[in-house]
């Protein structure tokens, strides 16, 4: 046997050094983050391909394969035995690589990564990662039986892994809501996702193990058929060219996967502001766009020839930062913070477009000190405004009555959650942002730290909580992370942060959502606005439909510019887009007709 003592001693010394270094909180944090996110999967990849590629090609290259073939053992058995021995070696290597992830545990102030490691645990990490690397190992073994040099086998293995990774990435783009990333990811968050979805765990695990055995069988049969045969350089180059061609073709196919929809009309924003516009909403053909300090109303009644009604500065004497914008009728409700002393103030500025084409500002609604008050959005139903507010951990809906003659002050408050103090932290604890709100007909859906809550607003001034679905969050540090909401037809989507998935709720009975399943959320947020769902995709917006327990992409709305904000009303989607060149940054609002 090869002398393994120096390797074992070296590994032990490395572990000891790392353990000592991890007594430094800073090193532990930096090392673990880097190791978990990139180094561990990379080491696993190198181990799998290196082991597989070396099995046959190294013997052939050093001519010791002749020694084996001159013994009374079937050629296929040589491959089989090497496959089994390599599999054991891979399992041991992977165990060593995975165990490095647990070197620096026990921090006083655990972050998400550390909590994730504690939740996932070594057995789950190993069980989730091994089938994926085993499959790569078998692929490298197959390549190893096809070439006559170790270097060729290693290069071929990495080229194939790279091509496979690229193709899977493109496939994920082609079918954005497939689970393709869960099939080949070898990271902690994949393991966690599989832990949360046992069916996917077993489906992917068993399938990959079956593919591994098939690849090993193919290698054994090829070797049995002709032990002395190997691919010439010409065929290897042709194979690499074929893979490159396949990747290029797939990229082209991905780029043209969805039918494209061009805008019915577009207009350039010419706001007298040094700040770019960032918030937009629409009602009918009226579109409101707000920058940090200015507001513009645009008229899209004729989308082919849009025009600007009016543009006005915010009526504030100090610095203002817009957070969100909601339009109802001809009134825009601009949520933001006003710079003030001693602390900033959260306000809702109310701007109405008058028939004369001017902007009339009403008295802003003050929501309080920005250090104590966290607000996400404003929903409007008739004369009532609903604001989701987190006041020092108390999550509540505040209702403001804007009826003519009403005081305009807070008319009602419904407390939906109380964010609890969560974990030890090095500094003073501040409550997380936590809340998200979505209005859907006569119901408000609210996500907070502990639950999804449904409020009935049929009596607009007296909202009533009608149902509550509590969350189970195994990673303590994720407690209180905001969960975005979107809806389409009878489906309500709620974003879970880790793993990044959308929880799909059936809201056929709007008061009582029923969880139907999860779909991957590979590319960040989905915006539900008007009748449809949208998300950024390449240089445009992908229109989606929630159907059959999943999400289906319908169209690709693009004008070749980068989208920044979306709003929809009356079958038209308005996209705030930007186009940058070296010197200038120009902004446009484009209208897409998306009547289904």
């Amino acid at each position: 046997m090869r002398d393994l003592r120096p390797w074992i001693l070296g590994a032990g010394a490395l572990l000891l050094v790392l353990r000592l270094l991890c007594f430094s909180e800073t090193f532990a944090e930096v090392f673990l983050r880097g190791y978990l996110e990139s180094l561990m999967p990379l080491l696993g990849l190198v181990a799998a391909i290196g082991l597989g590629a070396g099995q046959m090609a190294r013997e052939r290259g050093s001519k010791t394969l002749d020694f084996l073939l001159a013994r009374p053992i079937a050629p296929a058995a040589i491959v089989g035995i090497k496959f089994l021995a390599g599999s054991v070696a891979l399992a041991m290597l992977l165990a060593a690589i995975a165990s490095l992830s647990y070197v620096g545990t026990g921090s006083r102030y655990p972050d998400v990564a550390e909590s994730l490691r504690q939740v996932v645990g070594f057995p789950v990490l190993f069980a989730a990662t091994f089938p994926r690397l085993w499959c790569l190992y078998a692929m490298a073994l197959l390549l190893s039986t096809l070439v006559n040099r170790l270097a060729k086998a290693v290069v071929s293995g990495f080229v194939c892994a790279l091509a496979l990774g690229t193709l899977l990435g493109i496939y994920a783009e082609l079918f954005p809501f497939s689970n393709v990333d869960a099939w080949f990811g070898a990271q902690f968050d994949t393991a966690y996702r599989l832990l949360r979805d046992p069916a996917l765990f077993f489906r992917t695990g068993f399938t990959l193990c079956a593919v591994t055995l098939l690849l090993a069988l193919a290698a054994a049969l090829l070797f049995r058929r002709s032990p002395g045969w190997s691919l010439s350089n010409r065929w290897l180059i042709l194979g690499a060219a074929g893979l490159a061609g396949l990747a290029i073709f797939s990229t082209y196919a991905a780029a043209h996967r969805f039918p494209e929809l061009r805008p019915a009309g577009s207009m350039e924003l010419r706001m007298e502001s040094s700040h770019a516009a960032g918030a937009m909403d629409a009602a009918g053909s009226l579109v409101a766009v707000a920058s940090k300090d200015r507001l513009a109303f645009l008229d899209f009644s004729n989308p082919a020839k849009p025009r600007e009604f009016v543009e006005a500065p915010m009526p504030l004497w100090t610095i203002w930062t817009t957070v969100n914008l909601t339009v109802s009728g001809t009134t825009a409700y601009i949520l933001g913070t006003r710079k003030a002393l001693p602390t900033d103030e959260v306000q809702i500025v109310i701007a109405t477009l008058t028939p004369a084409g001017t902007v009339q500002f009403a008295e802003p609604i003050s929501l309080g000190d920005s250090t104590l008050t966290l607000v996400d959005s404003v929903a409007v139903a008739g004369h009532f405004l609903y604001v989701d507010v987190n006041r020092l951990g108390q999550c509540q809906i505040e209702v403001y009555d804007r009826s003519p003659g009403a005081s305009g002050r807070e008319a009602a408050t419904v407390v939906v959650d109380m964010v609890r103090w969560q974990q030890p932290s090095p500094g003073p604890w501040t409550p997380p942002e936590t809340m998200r709100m979505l209005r859907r007909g006569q119901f408000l859906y609210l996500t907070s730290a502990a639950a999804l809550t449904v409020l009935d607003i049929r009596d607009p001034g007296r909202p009533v909580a009608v149902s509550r679905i509590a969350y189970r969050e195994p990673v303590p540090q994720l407690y209180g992370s905001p969960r975005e909401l979107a809806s389409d037809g009878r489906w309500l989507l709620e974003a879970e942060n880790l793993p990044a998935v959308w929880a799909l709720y059936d809201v056929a009975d709007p008061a009582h959502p029923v969880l139907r399943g999860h779909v991957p959320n590979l590319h960040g947020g989905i915006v539900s606005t008007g009748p449809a769902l949208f998300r950024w995709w390449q240089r445009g917006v992908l229109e989606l439909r929630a159907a059959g327990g999943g999400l289906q992409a319908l169209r690709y709305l693009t004008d070749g510019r980068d989208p920044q904000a979306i709003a929809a009303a009356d079958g038209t989607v308005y996209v705030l887009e930007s186009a940058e060149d070296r010197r200038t940054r120009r902004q446009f609002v484009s209208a897409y007709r998306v009547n289904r």
Partner: protein
Amino acid sequence: MSQPAIAIQGLSKRFGKRAAVDGLSFEVPTGGVCGFLGRNGAGKTTAIRMLMNLTDPSAGQALLLGLDSRRHHAELMSRVGYVAEAPILYDWMTVRELVRFTSRFYERWNTAAVDALLGRFGIDDRQKVRHLSRGTHAQLALALALGHDPELLILDEPATGLDVLVRRDFLESIIQIIQQEGRTVLLSSHLVHEVERVADQIVVIDEGRLLVSARLDDLKLRTGQSLEEIFVGLVGRREEVRQ
């Protein structure tokens, strides 16, 4: 009449457009030593590799001990011993480890005989294989090839690259082993006088083609020449024709 130890029919191997072995056919009877002669690059090693199923033939068939070498690979290898030209062994093992490793492939393994051979060659079994000299390396390969008492021993230029003294010693060993055991041996070489000392039959090939296959005594009697003269005559005539 007993079946031949080796029967080759129309064996060919092409590398691209070049034919390394071209329609080779001959038989080696059981028992005795067959000298397999040819110049450097004549196709001897390629032919032997096809016999051992280490290289795929482009055409033809090779039967060893009555069995197809491709179909009955494992069975044949338990009855055939093989020493390659400049044999490559696992050089990170010690001699003892290599002997133990090799023995595990076989149902029968004559440990005493292998130990005796190692002792005779003066090989220290605690040494790493990588530290052995070239001659000792070849002797170790021979000992390993004989460990399972093979019925047929195929030696592909086993003494190539050894100095004169070591080569003579090595060939003496082979002669003694053959005389003791009485097995069939195919000894490939381009050194004619060495083959002449031990061979009962000779096969001469050139450019992958068979020139002659006959019993050595008959050939000498028929031509009245030494093997070296016969070999030079055969190969030289072809060279003249080519020129």
